[in-house]
Protein backbone atom coordinates (compact mmCIF):
# COMPACT_ATOMS: atom_id res chain seq x y z
CA UNK A 1 0.00 0.00 0.00
CA UNK A 2 3.06 2.28 -0.12
CA UNK A 3 2.10 5.39 -2.00
CA UNK A 4 4.89 7.53 -3.48
CA UNK A 5 2.63 10.57 -3.19
CA UNK A 6 2.03 9.96 0.52
CA UNK A 7 4.35 12.69 1.70
CA UNK A 8 3.37 15.24 -0.89
CA UNK A 9 -0.34 14.66 -1.47
CA UNK A 10 -3.11 15.56 0.98
CA UNK A 11 -2.90 13.79 4.34
CA UNK A 12 -6.59 12.95 4.27
CA UNK A 13 -8.56 12.22 1.13
CA UNK A 14 -12.17 11.09 1.04
CA UNK A 15 -13.81 10.13 -2.25
CA UNK A 16 -17.50 9.35 -2.64
CA UNK A 17 -17.98 8.29 1.00
CA UNK A 18 -21.50 7.02 1.63
CA UNK A 19 -22.99 5.76 4.84
CA UNK A 20 -26.40 4.53 5.77
CA UNK A 21 -27.85 3.13 8.97
CA UNK A 22 -30.41 0.60 7.83
CA UNK A 23 -32.56 2.52 5.36
CA UNK A 24 -31.50 5.87 6.74
CA UNK A 25 -28.94 7.45 4.39
CA UNK A 26 -26.67 9.73 6.35
CA UNK A 27 -23.76 10.47 3.98
CA UNK A 28 -24.46 10.91 0.27
CA UNK A 29 -21.02 10.66 -1.30
CA UNK A 30 -18.62 13.01 0.42
CA UNK A 31 -15.41 14.20 -1.24
CA UNK A 32 -12.89 15.98 0.93
CA UNK A 33 -9.18 16.69 1.11
CA UNK A 34 -7.15 17.90 4.06
CA UNK A 35 -3.52 18.91 3.50
CA UNK A 36 -0.77 18.32 6.02
CA UNK A 37 -0.79 20.99 8.71
CA UNK A 38 -4.31 22.09 7.79
CA UNK A 39 -7.01 22.68 10.38
CA UNK A 40 -10.37 21.86 8.86
CA UNK A 41 -13.45 22.97 10.76
CA UNK A 42 -16.57 21.01 9.93
CA UNK A 43 -19.74 22.95 10.61
CA UNK A 44 -23.40 22.25 9.95
CA UNK A 45 -26.77 21.68 11.55
CA UNK A 46 -27.45 18.89 13.98
CA UNK A 47 -28.03 15.61 12.16
CA UNK A 48 -26.23 16.70 9.00
CA UNK A 49 -23.72 13.85 9.37
CA UNK A 50 -20.65 15.62 10.77
CA UNK A 51 -19.91 13.04 13.47
CA UNK A 52 -20.57 10.17 11.10
CA UNK A 53 -18.14 11.61 8.58
CA UNK A 54 -15.48 12.14 11.25
CA UNK A 55 -15.94 8.60 12.50
CA UNK A 56 -15.50 7.23 9.01
CA UNK A 57 -12.00 8.71 8.95
CA UNK A 58 -10.74 6.35 11.69
CA UNK A 59 -13.12 3.57 10.72
CA UNK A 60 -15.22 3.72 13.90
CA UNK A 61 -17.98 3.82 11.31
CA UNK A 62 -17.65 1.61 8.22
CA UNK A 63 -18.55 3.51 5.07
CA UNK A 64 -20.92 1.64 2.75
CA UNK A 65 -19.16 3.01 -0.30
CA UNK A 66 -16.30 5.29 -1.20
CA UNK A 67 -12.74 5.46 -0.01
CA UNK A 68 -10.93 7.08 2.91
CA UNK A 69 -7.18 7.59 2.61
CA UNK A 70 -4.95 8.83 5.41
CA UNK A 71 -1.29 9.36 4.54
CA UNK A 72 -1.98 7.71 1.20
CA UNK A 73 -3.17 4.51 2.88
CA UNK A 74 -6.69 3.21 2.30
CA UNK A 75 -8.42 2.99 5.69
CA UNK A 76 -10.25 -0.17 6.73
CA UNK A 77 -10.07 -2.00 3.40
CA UNK A 78 -7.71 -3.21 0.78
CA UNK A 79 -8.45 -3.07 -2.88
CA UNK A 80 -8.16 -6.24 -4.91
CA UNK A 81 -9.63 -6.86 -8.38
CA UNK A 82 -11.50 -3.58 -8.19
CA UNK A 83 -13.33 -4.58 -5.01
CA UNK A 84 -12.86 -3.61 -1.38
CA UNK A 85 -11.96 -6.36 1.05
CA UNK A 86 -12.13 -5.70 4.75
CA UNK A 87 -8.73 -5.55 6.44
CA UNK A 88 -7.94 -7.83 9.37
CA UNK A 89 -8.62 -6.15 12.70
CA UNK A 90 -4.94 -5.92 13.51
CA UNK A 91 -4.27 -3.74 10.45
CA UNK A 92 -7.22 -1.48 11.23
CA UNK A 93 -5.94 -1.06 14.78
CA UNK A 94 -2.54 -0.02 13.48
CA UNK A 95 -4.23 2.58 11.27
CA UNK A 96 -6.31 3.91 14.14
CA UNK A 97 -3.29 4.19 16.39
CA UNK A 98 -1.91 6.90 14.07
CA UNK A 99 -5.12 8.95 14.27
CA UNK A 100 -6.02 10.66 17.55
CA UNK A 101 -9.63 11.28 18.47
CA UNK A 102 -11.25 13.55 21.06
CA UNK A 103 -14.90 13.07 21.96
CA UNK A 104 -17.62 15.44 23.09
CA UNK A 105 -17.99 13.64 26.41
CA UNK A 106 -14.22 13.13 26.94
CA UNK A 107 -14.60 9.35 27.45
CA UNK A 108 -11.66 9.20 29.82
CA UNK A 109 -11.22 5.89 31.62
CA UNK A 110 -12.60 6.70 35.08
CA UNK A 111 -10.90 3.82 36.89
CA UNK A 112 -7.43 4.93 35.78
CA UNK A 113 -5.50 7.98 36.95
CA UNK A 114 -4.69 10.80 34.55
CA UNK A 115 -1.21 9.41 33.93
CA UNK A 116 -2.52 5.86 33.45
CA UNK A 117 -5.10 7.17 30.98
CA UNK A 118 -2.36 8.75 28.91
CA UNK A 119 0.13 5.84 28.96
CA UNK A 120 -2.34 2.95 28.55
CA UNK A 121 -2.21 2.90 24.75
CA UNK A 122 1.50 3.78 24.32
CA UNK A 123 2.59 1.01 26.71
CA UNK A 124 0.12 -1.67 25.66
CA UNK A 125 -0.57 -0.94 22.01
CA UNK A 126 2.83 0.41 20.98
CA UNK A 127 4.70 -1.55 23.67
CA UNK A 128 6.77 1.42 24.76
CA UNK A 129 8.61 0.92 28.05
CA UNK A 130 6.60 2.32 30.94
CA UNK A 131 9.36 4.67 32.03
CA UNK A 132 9.73 6.51 28.76
CA UNK A 133 5.97 6.51 28.15
CA UNK A 134 5.42 8.10 31.56
CA UNK A 135 8.09 10.68 30.86
CA UNK A 136 6.51 11.57 27.53
CA UNK A 137 3.07 11.66 29.18
CA UNK A 138 4.25 14.10 31.84
CA UNK A 139 5.65 16.38 29.15
CA UNK A 140 2.31 16.27 27.32
CA UNK A 141 0.34 16.92 30.49
CA UNK A 142 2.59 19.87 31.23
CA UNK A 143 1.85 21.15 27.75
CA UNK A 144 -1.92 21.07 28.36
CA UNK A 145 -1.39 22.68 31.77
CA UNK A 146 -2.11 19.64 33.93
CA UNK A 147 1.37 18.71 35.11
CA UNK A 148 0.15 18.74 38.72
CA UNK A 149 -2.77 16.37 38.10
CA UNK A 150 -0.95 13.23 36.97
CA UNK A 151 -2.19 11.16 39.91
CA UNK A 152 -5.74 12.51 40.02
CA UNK A 153 -8.70 10.46 38.83
CA UNK A 154 -10.71 11.95 35.94
CA UNK A 155 -13.90 12.32 37.98
CA UNK A 156 -12.15 14.70 40.36
CA UNK A 157 -11.31 17.10 37.50
CA UNK A 158 -13.41 19.81 35.90
CA UNK A 159 -14.81 19.23 32.42
CA UNK A 160 -12.20 21.48 30.86
CA UNK A 161 -9.40 19.63 32.63
CA UNK A 162 -10.83 16.27 31.59
CA UNK A 163 -10.98 17.33 27.96
CA UNK A 164 -7.36 18.50 28.11
CA UNK A 165 -6.36 15.10 29.50
CA UNK A 166 -8.28 13.49 26.62
CA UNK A 167 -6.28 15.59 24.15
CA UNK A 168 -3.03 14.56 25.85
CA UNK A 169 -4.16 10.93 25.70
CA UNK A 170 -4.70 11.22 21.96
CA UNK A 171 -1.36 12.97 21.43
CA UNK A 172 0.51 10.29 23.39
CA UNK A 173 0.24 7.97 20.39
CA UNK A 174 2.10 10.59 18.30
CA UNK A 175 -0.68 10.76 15.72
CA UNK A 176 -0.26 12.44 12.36
CA UNK A 177 -3.92 13.50 12.44
CA UNK A 178 -6.25 14.58 15.24
CA UNK A 179 -10.03 14.35 15.05
CA UNK A 180 -12.19 16.43 17.37
CA UNK A 181 -15.95 15.86 17.67
CA UNK A 182 -17.48 18.92 19.34
CA UNK A 183 -14.76 18.98 22.00
CA UNK A 184 -16.26 21.95 23.86
CA UNK A 185 -19.99 21.28 23.53
CA UNK A 186 -20.29 19.54 26.90
CA UNK A 187 -18.40 22.25 28.77
CA UNK A 188 -19.58 25.14 30.90
CA UNK A 189 -18.97 28.39 28.98
CA UNK A 190 -16.13 29.52 31.22
CA UNK A 191 -14.21 26.28 30.57
CA UNK A 192 -14.40 26.40 26.77
CA UNK A 193 -11.48 28.80 26.44
CA UNK A 194 -8.88 26.60 28.12
CA UNK A 195 -9.62 23.71 25.74
CA UNK A 196 -9.64 25.91 22.65
CA UNK A 197 -6.30 27.37 23.78
CA UNK A 198 -4.75 23.91 23.83
CA UNK A 199 -6.15 23.19 20.37
CA UNK A 200 -4.85 26.52 19.10
CA UNK A 201 -1.35 25.63 20.35
CA UNK A 202 -1.63 22.29 18.67
CA UNK A 203 -2.60 23.91 15.37
CA UNK A 204 0.26 26.38 15.69
CA UNK A 205 2.61 23.42 16.16
CA UNK A 206 1.61 22.13 12.73
CA UNK A 207 -0.78 19.31 13.71
CA UNK A 208 -3.29 18.34 11.04
CA UNK A 209 -6.75 18.53 12.58
CA UNK A 210 -10.37 17.94 11.62
CA UNK A 211 -12.62 19.71 14.10
CA UNK A 212 -16.40 19.40 14.26
CA UNK A 213 -17.43 22.49 16.12
CA UNK A 214 -20.06 25.11 16.78
CA UNK A 215 -17.40 27.60 17.93
CA UNK A 216 -17.46 30.00 15.01
CA UNK A 217 -14.86 32.24 16.65
CA UNK A 218 -12.41 29.34 16.78
CA UNK A 219 -13.20 28.41 13.17
CA UNK A 220 -12.61 31.97 11.99
CA UNK A 221 -9.34 32.36 13.89
CA UNK A 222 -7.68 28.98 13.80
CA UNK A 223 -9.08 27.03 10.86
CA UNK A 224 -7.26 27.05 7.55
CA UNK A 225 -10.31 25.54 5.86
CA UNK A 226 -13.98 25.44 6.76
CA UNK A 227 -16.48 22.94 5.35
CA UNK A 228 -20.23 23.33 5.71
CA UNK A 229 -22.29 20.14 5.77
CA UNK A 230 -25.96 19.81 5.13
CA UNK A 231 -28.07 16.70 4.63
CA UNK A 232 -25.10 14.36 4.36
CA UNK A 233 -23.21 16.43 1.78
CA UNK A 234 -20.46 19.00 1.92
CA UNK A 235 -22.26 21.98 0.47
CA UNK A 236 -19.48 24.48 0.61
CA UNK A 237 -15.79 24.39 1.42
CA UNK A 238 -13.11 27.06 1.47
CA UNK A 239 -11.11 29.41 3.61
CA UNK A 240 -12.81 30.64 6.79
CA UNK A 241 -13.28 34.01 5.14
CA UNK A 242 -14.96 32.53 2.06
CA UNK A 243 -17.33 30.27 3.94
CA UNK A 244 -18.08 32.27 7.08
CA UNK A 245 -18.00 35.86 5.81
CA UNK A 246 -19.01 35.44 2.21
CA UNK A 247 -20.95 32.19 1.75
CA UNK A 248 -22.11 31.38 -1.75
CA UNK A 249 -24.90 28.97 -0.84
CA UNK A 250 -28.27 29.89 0.51
CA UNK A 251 -28.21 27.02 3.03
CA UNK A 252 -24.84 28.09 4.40
CA UNK A 253 -26.15 31.61 4.79
CA UNK A 254 -29.29 30.54 6.62
CA UNK A 255 -27.28 28.24 8.92
CA UNK A 256 -24.80 30.98 9.74
CA UNK A 257 -27.54 33.50 10.41
CA UNK A 258 -28.82 31.14 13.10
CA UNK A 259 -25.54 30.42 14.86
CA UNK A 260 -23.70 33.73 14.59
Amino acid sequence: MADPGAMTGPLVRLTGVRKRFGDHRVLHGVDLEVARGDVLCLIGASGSGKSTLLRCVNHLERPNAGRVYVGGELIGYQERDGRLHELPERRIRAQRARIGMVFQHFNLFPHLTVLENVIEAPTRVNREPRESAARAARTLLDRVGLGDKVNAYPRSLSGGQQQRVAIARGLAMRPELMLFDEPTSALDPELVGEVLDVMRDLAAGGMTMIVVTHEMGFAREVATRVAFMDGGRIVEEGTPHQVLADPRHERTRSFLSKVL
Partner: protein
Amino acid sequence: MVQQQAAPDTRVADADDDHDIVPRSRPWRWVGVAVVLVVAAEVVSSVLTNPNYQWDIVGKYLFDSRILAGLGTTLLLTTVAMALACLLGLVLALMRRADSRLLRATAGGYVWLFRGTPVLVQLIIWYNLAILVPVVSIGIPFGPQLWTAQTNDLISPWTAAILGLALNEAAYLCEIIRSGINAVDYGQTEAAQALGMSRRHSFRRIVLPQALRVIVPPASNEAIGLLKYSSVVSVIALPELLYAGQLIYGRTYETIPVLIVVSIWYLVIVTLLTWLEHRLERRLGAGFAARHGSAAPSRAGRWSRWLTPAR
Protein backbone atom coordinates in the same frame (compact mmCIF):
# COMPACT_ATOMS: atom_id res chain seq x y z
CA MET B 1 -24.13 15.32 68.40
CA VAL B 2 -23.06 18.73 67.23
CA GLN B 3 -20.67 17.27 64.67
CA GLN B 4 -23.52 15.48 62.93
CA GLN B 5 -24.76 18.78 61.62
CA ALA B 6 -21.50 19.57 59.83
CA ALA B 7 -21.61 20.48 56.16
CA PRO B 8 -21.50 17.35 53.98
CA ASP B 9 -18.20 18.35 52.45
CA THR B 10 -15.96 17.14 55.23
CA ARG B 11 -12.81 18.30 53.54
CA VAL B 12 -13.55 22.00 53.93
CA ALA B 13 -15.68 21.90 57.02
CA ASP B 14 -13.60 22.52 60.10
CA ALA B 15 -14.79 21.23 63.46
CA ASP B 16 -14.75 24.79 64.78
CA ASP B 17 -17.06 26.15 62.11
CA ASP B 18 -20.25 24.56 63.29
CA HIS B 19 -20.34 25.52 66.92
CA ASP B 20 -22.92 28.25 66.41
CA ILE B 21 -25.47 25.77 65.14
CA VAL B 22 -27.92 24.35 67.67
CA PRO B 23 -29.20 21.06 66.25
CA ARG B 24 -32.92 20.50 65.92
CA SER B 25 -34.13 18.23 68.72
CA ARG B 26 -35.01 14.74 67.49
CA PRO B 27 -36.96 12.97 70.28
CA TRP B 28 -38.07 10.01 68.13
CA ARG B 29 -34.53 9.16 67.30
CA TRP B 30 -33.84 8.64 70.99
CA VAL B 31 -37.00 6.58 71.46
CA GLY B 32 -35.85 4.36 68.59
CA VAL B 33 -32.38 3.98 70.05
CA ALA B 34 -33.86 3.07 73.45
CA VAL B 35 -36.18 0.41 71.96
CA VAL B 36 -33.34 -1.18 69.99
CA LEU B 37 -31.07 -1.27 73.04
CA VAL B 38 -33.74 -2.88 75.26
CA VAL B 39 -34.67 -5.53 72.71
CA ALA B 40 -31.02 -6.32 71.99
CA ALA B 41 -30.28 -6.70 75.69
CA GLU B 42 -33.27 -9.04 76.10
CA VAL B 43 -32.16 -11.25 73.23
CA VAL B 44 -28.54 -11.45 74.34
CA SER B 45 -29.42 -12.28 77.93
CA SER B 46 -31.94 -14.91 76.87
CA VAL B 47 -29.44 -16.59 74.56
CA LEU B 48 -26.77 -16.61 77.25
CA THR B 49 -28.90 -17.70 80.22
CA ASN B 50 -31.47 -20.06 78.67
CA PRO B 51 -30.12 -23.58 79.37
CA ASN B 52 -31.96 -25.07 76.37
CA TYR B 53 -29.31 -23.72 74.03
CA GLN B 54 -26.91 -26.19 75.64
CA TRP B 55 -23.80 -24.15 75.00
CA ASP B 56 -21.61 -26.87 76.49
CA ILE B 57 -22.73 -29.25 73.72
CA VAL B 58 -22.16 -26.53 71.15
CA GLY B 59 -18.61 -26.29 72.47
CA LYS B 60 -18.19 -30.03 72.24
CA TYR B 61 -19.11 -30.21 68.54
CA LEU B 62 -17.64 -26.92 67.33
CA PHE B 63 -14.36 -28.56 66.34
CA ASP B 64 -15.67 -32.09 65.89
CA SER B 65 -13.79 -33.80 63.08
CA ARG B 66 -17.00 -34.71 61.21
CA ILE B 67 -18.15 -31.08 61.33
CA LEU B 68 -14.76 -29.84 60.16
CA ALA B 69 -14.75 -32.38 57.33
CA GLY B 70 -18.21 -31.17 56.32
CA LEU B 71 -16.99 -27.59 56.48
CA GLY B 72 -14.09 -28.50 54.20
CA THR B 73 -16.48 -30.13 51.74
CA THR B 74 -18.77 -27.11 51.74
CA LEU B 75 -15.88 -24.71 51.20
CA LEU B 76 -14.32 -26.74 48.42
CA LEU B 77 -17.66 -27.29 46.72
CA THR B 78 -18.62 -23.63 46.90
CA THR B 79 -15.23 -22.37 45.74
CA VAL B 80 -14.89 -24.73 42.80
CA ALA B 81 -18.53 -24.35 41.73
CA MET B 82 -18.39 -20.57 42.03
CA ALA B 83 -15.11 -20.34 40.08
CA LEU B 84 -16.50 -22.49 37.27
CA ALA B 85 -19.77 -20.56 37.33
CA CYS B 86 -17.91 -17.25 37.00
CA LEU B 87 -16.02 -18.48 33.96
CA LEU B 88 -19.06 -19.99 32.31
CA GLY B 89 -21.19 -17.00 33.29
CA LEU B 90 -18.70 -14.66 31.62
CA VAL B 91 -18.68 -16.75 28.45
CA LEU B 92 -22.49 -16.83 28.44
CA ALA B 93 -22.70 -13.07 29.04
CA LEU B 94 -20.36 -12.44 26.10
CA MET B 95 -22.41 -14.82 23.97
CA ARG B 96 -25.58 -12.91 24.83
CA ARG B 97 -23.91 -9.75 23.55
CA ALA B 98 -22.48 -11.35 20.41
CA ASP B 99 -23.38 -10.26 16.89
CA SER B 100 -24.36 -13.79 15.95
CA ARG B 101 -28.01 -14.51 16.57
CA LEU B 102 -27.24 -18.21 17.05
CA LEU B 103 -24.82 -17.49 19.91
CA ARG B 104 -27.27 -15.08 21.53
CA ALA B 105 -30.11 -17.59 21.30
CA THR B 106 -27.97 -20.42 22.66
CA ALA B 107 -26.97 -18.43 25.73
CA GLY B 108 -30.53 -17.22 26.17
CA GLY B 109 -31.82 -20.78 26.02
CA TYR B 110 -29.24 -21.91 28.53
CA VAL B 111 -30.26 -19.23 31.03
CA TRP B 112 -33.92 -20.01 30.46
CA LEU B 113 -33.43 -23.72 31.11
CA PHE B 114 -31.07 -23.62 34.07
CA ARG B 115 -32.73 -20.72 35.82
CA GLY B 116 -36.16 -22.12 35.20
CA THR B 117 -35.75 -25.54 36.81
CA PRO B 118 -35.07 -26.37 40.47
CA VAL B 119 -31.42 -26.95 41.25
CA LEU B 120 -32.47 -30.03 43.21
CA VAL B 121 -33.84 -31.59 40.02
CA GLN B 122 -30.70 -30.64 38.10
CA LEU B 123 -28.51 -32.30 40.74
CA ILE B 124 -30.48 -35.52 40.68
CA ILE B 125 -30.37 -35.58 36.89
CA TRP B 126 -26.59 -35.10 36.84
CA TYR B 127 -26.18 -37.80 39.46
CA ASN B 128 -28.29 -40.19 37.44
CA LEU B 129 -26.93 -39.12 34.10
CA ALA B 130 -26.10 -42.72 33.25
CA ILE B 131 -29.83 -43.46 32.95
CA LEU B 132 -30.17 -40.84 30.22
CA VAL B 133 -26.75 -41.15 28.59
CA PRO B 134 -25.02 -44.44 29.38
CA VAL B 135 -21.82 -43.72 27.43
CA VAL B 136 -19.84 -40.52 26.99
CA SER B 137 -17.37 -40.14 24.17
CA ILE B 138 -15.17 -37.53 22.57
CA GLY B 139 -14.53 -37.70 18.89
CA ILE B 140 -15.12 -36.14 15.53
CA PRO B 141 -18.80 -35.18 15.27
CA PHE B 142 -20.64 -37.88 13.30
CA GLY B 143 -17.20 -39.49 12.75
CA PRO B 144 -14.93 -41.88 14.64
CA GLN B 145 -14.69 -41.75 18.44
CA LEU B 146 -11.33 -40.93 20.01
CA TRP B 147 -12.22 -41.55 23.65
CA THR B 148 -15.12 -43.34 25.28
CA ALA B 149 -16.16 -43.94 28.88
CA GLN B 150 -19.07 -45.26 30.88
CA THR B 151 -21.01 -42.34 32.35
CA ASN B 152 -21.18 -44.14 35.67
CA ASP B 153 -17.38 -44.09 35.95
CA LEU B 154 -17.28 -40.34 35.41
CA ILE B 155 -20.11 -39.18 37.62
CA SER B 156 -19.31 -39.39 41.29
CA PRO B 157 -21.30 -37.48 43.92
CA TRP B 158 -18.56 -34.84 43.71
CA THR B 159 -18.68 -34.32 39.96
CA ALA B 160 -22.46 -34.36 40.00
CA ALA B 161 -22.55 -31.80 42.81
CA ILE B 162 -20.03 -29.46 41.17
CA LEU B 163 -21.69 -29.78 37.75
CA GLY B 164 -25.14 -29.20 39.19
CA LEU B 165 -24.23 -26.20 41.30
CA ALA B 166 -21.86 -24.57 38.80
CA LEU B 167 -24.11 -24.91 35.76
CA ASN B 168 -27.08 -23.56 37.70
CA GLU B 169 -25.14 -20.69 39.21
CA ALA B 170 -23.63 -19.77 35.83
CA ALA B 171 -27.11 -18.92 34.56
CA TYR B 172 -27.59 -16.37 37.33
CA LEU B 173 -24.07 -14.97 37.01
CA CYS B 174 -24.53 -14.61 33.26
CA GLU B 175 -27.31 -12.11 33.84
CA ILE B 176 -25.38 -10.26 36.55
CA ILE B 177 -22.25 -10.01 34.40
CA ARG B 178 -24.26 -8.97 31.35
CA SER B 179 -25.96 -6.14 33.18
CA GLY B 180 -22.59 -5.08 34.59
CA ILE B 181 -21.08 -4.88 31.11
CA ASN B 182 -24.14 -3.01 29.83
CA ALA B 183 -23.73 -0.48 32.61
CA VAL B 184 -20.40 0.68 31.14
CA ASP B 185 -20.86 3.56 28.69
CA TYR B 186 -20.22 2.52 25.09
CA GLY B 187 -18.04 5.63 24.77
CA GLN B 188 -15.41 3.76 26.77
CA THR B 189 -15.15 1.07 24.11
CA GLU B 190 -15.07 3.68 21.35
CA ALA B 191 -12.31 5.65 23.05
CA ALA B 192 -10.32 2.43 23.45
CA GLN B 193 -10.84 1.51 19.79
CA ALA B 194 -9.85 4.98 18.64
CA LEU B 195 -6.57 4.53 20.50
CA GLY B 196 -5.91 1.34 18.55
CA MET B 197 -6.65 -1.13 21.33
CA SER B 198 -7.80 -4.60 20.38
CA ARG B 199 -11.26 -5.74 21.44
CA ARG B 200 -9.71 -8.07 23.97
CA HIS B 201 -7.48 -5.39 25.41
CA SER B 202 -10.31 -2.88 25.66
CA PHE B 203 -12.56 -5.45 27.33
CA ARG B 204 -9.98 -6.63 29.85
CA ARG B 205 -8.38 -3.32 30.75
CA ILE B 206 -11.15 -0.78 30.20
CA VAL B 207 -14.65 -2.30 30.26
CA LEU B 208 -14.31 -5.23 32.68
CA PRO B 209 -12.77 -3.31 35.60
CA GLN B 210 -15.64 -0.81 35.42
CA ALA B 211 -18.25 -3.53 34.99
CA LEU B 212 -16.87 -5.38 38.02
CA ARG B 213 -17.87 -2.47 40.22
CA VAL B 214 -21.45 -3.24 39.32
CA ILE B 215 -20.99 -7.01 39.26
CA VAL B 216 -19.22 -7.62 42.57
CA PRO B 217 -22.01 -6.78 45.06
CA PRO B 218 -24.71 -9.01 43.50
CA ALA B 219 -22.13 -11.69 42.66
CA SER B 220 -21.04 -11.76 46.31
CA ASN B 221 -24.66 -12.21 47.23
CA GLU B 222 -24.72 -15.17 44.86
CA ALA B 223 -21.57 -16.63 46.44
CA ILE B 224 -23.14 -16.41 49.88
CA GLY B 225 -26.36 -17.91 48.56
CA LEU B 226 -24.42 -20.72 46.89
CA LEU B 227 -22.53 -21.40 50.11
CA LYS B 228 -25.79 -22.11 51.86
CA TYR B 229 -27.81 -23.79 49.17
CA SER B 230 -24.86 -26.05 48.45
CA SER B 231 -26.39 -28.06 51.31
CA VAL B 232 -28.89 -29.48 48.78
CA VAL B 233 -26.11 -31.80 47.63
CA SER B 234 -26.95 -33.92 50.66
CA VAL B 235 -29.64 -35.49 48.41
CA ILE B 236 -26.86 -37.20 46.51
CA ALA B 237 -25.18 -38.24 49.75
CA LEU B 238 -22.31 -35.79 49.75
CA PRO B 239 -21.62 -34.97 53.42
CA GLU B 240 -21.21 -31.21 53.44
CA LEU B 241 -21.52 -29.07 56.55
CA LEU B 242 -25.26 -29.19 57.16
CA TYR B 243 -25.48 -32.88 56.26
CA ALA B 244 -22.60 -33.69 58.62
CA GLY B 245 -24.58 -31.97 61.37
CA GLN B 246 -27.74 -33.87 60.47
CA LEU B 247 -25.84 -37.17 60.64
CA ILE B 248 -24.72 -36.29 64.15
CA TYR B 249 -28.01 -35.17 65.64
CA GLY B 250 -29.85 -37.98 63.84
CA ARG B 251 -28.15 -40.30 66.30
CA THR B 252 -27.76 -38.12 69.41
CA TYR B 253 -30.91 -35.96 69.18
CA GLU B 254 -28.89 -32.89 70.14
CA THR B 255 -30.62 -31.10 67.29
CA ILE B 256 -30.52 -27.45 68.35
CA PRO B 257 -26.92 -27.28 69.63
CA VAL B 258 -25.59 -29.08 66.55
CA LEU B 259 -27.51 -26.73 64.25
CA ILE B 260 -26.06 -23.82 66.20
CA VAL B 261 -22.58 -25.23 65.53
CA VAL B 262 -23.38 -25.48 61.84
CA SER B 263 -24.77 -21.93 61.81
CA ILE B 264 -21.69 -20.59 63.58
CA TRP B 265 -19.50 -21.97 60.82
CA TYR B 266 -21.73 -20.56 58.09
CA LEU B 267 -21.58 -17.19 59.84
CA VAL B 268 -17.80 -17.34 60.07
CA ILE B 269 -17.46 -17.98 56.34
CA VAL B 270 -20.05 -15.38 55.40
CA THR B 271 -18.27 -12.82 57.59
CA LEU B 272 -15.04 -13.61 55.81
CA LEU B 273 -16.68 -13.34 52.40
CA THR B 274 -18.26 -10.02 53.33
CA TRP B 275 -14.90 -8.68 54.44
CA LEU B 276 -13.32 -9.79 51.17
CA GLU B 277 -16.14 -8.19 49.23
CA HIS B 278 -15.65 -4.86 50.97
CA ARG B 279 -11.95 -4.89 50.19
CA LEU B 280 -12.64 -5.72 46.57
CA GLU B 281 -15.30 -3.02 46.31
CA ARG B 282 -12.92 -0.45 47.68
CA ARG B 283 -10.25 -1.38 45.20
CA LEU B 284 -12.65 -1.29 42.28
CA GLY B 285 -14.14 1.97 43.51
CA ALA B 286 -10.90 3.88 42.97
CA GLY B 287 -11.66 6.94 40.88
CA PHE B 288 -15.41 6.81 41.38
CA ALA B 289 -15.81 8.52 44.74
CA ALA B 290 -13.09 11.14 44.44
CA ARG B 291 -15.44 14.05 43.80
CA HIS B 292 -17.28 14.08 47.07
CA GLY B 293 -14.53 13.24 49.50
CA SER B 294 -16.36 10.20 50.80
CA ALA B 295 -13.03 8.41 50.99
CA ALA B 296 -12.15 10.50 54.05
CA PRO B 297 -15.02 10.32 56.53
CA SER B 298 -14.97 12.66 59.47
CA ARG B 299 -13.51 11.25 62.63
CA ALA B 300 -15.66 13.39 64.84
CA GLY B 301 -18.53 11.97 66.83
CA ARG B 302 -17.45 8.36 66.65
CA TRP B 303 -19.92 7.16 69.27
CA SER B 304 -22.92 9.12 68.16
CA ARG B 305 -22.31 7.77 64.66
CA TRP B 306 -23.12 4.30 65.94
CA LEU B 307 -26.39 5.35 67.51
CA THR B 308 -27.76 7.71 64.89
CA PRO B 309 -27.95 7.87 61.12
CA ALA B 310 -25.06 9.52 59.32
CA ARG B 311 -25.50 13.10 58.09
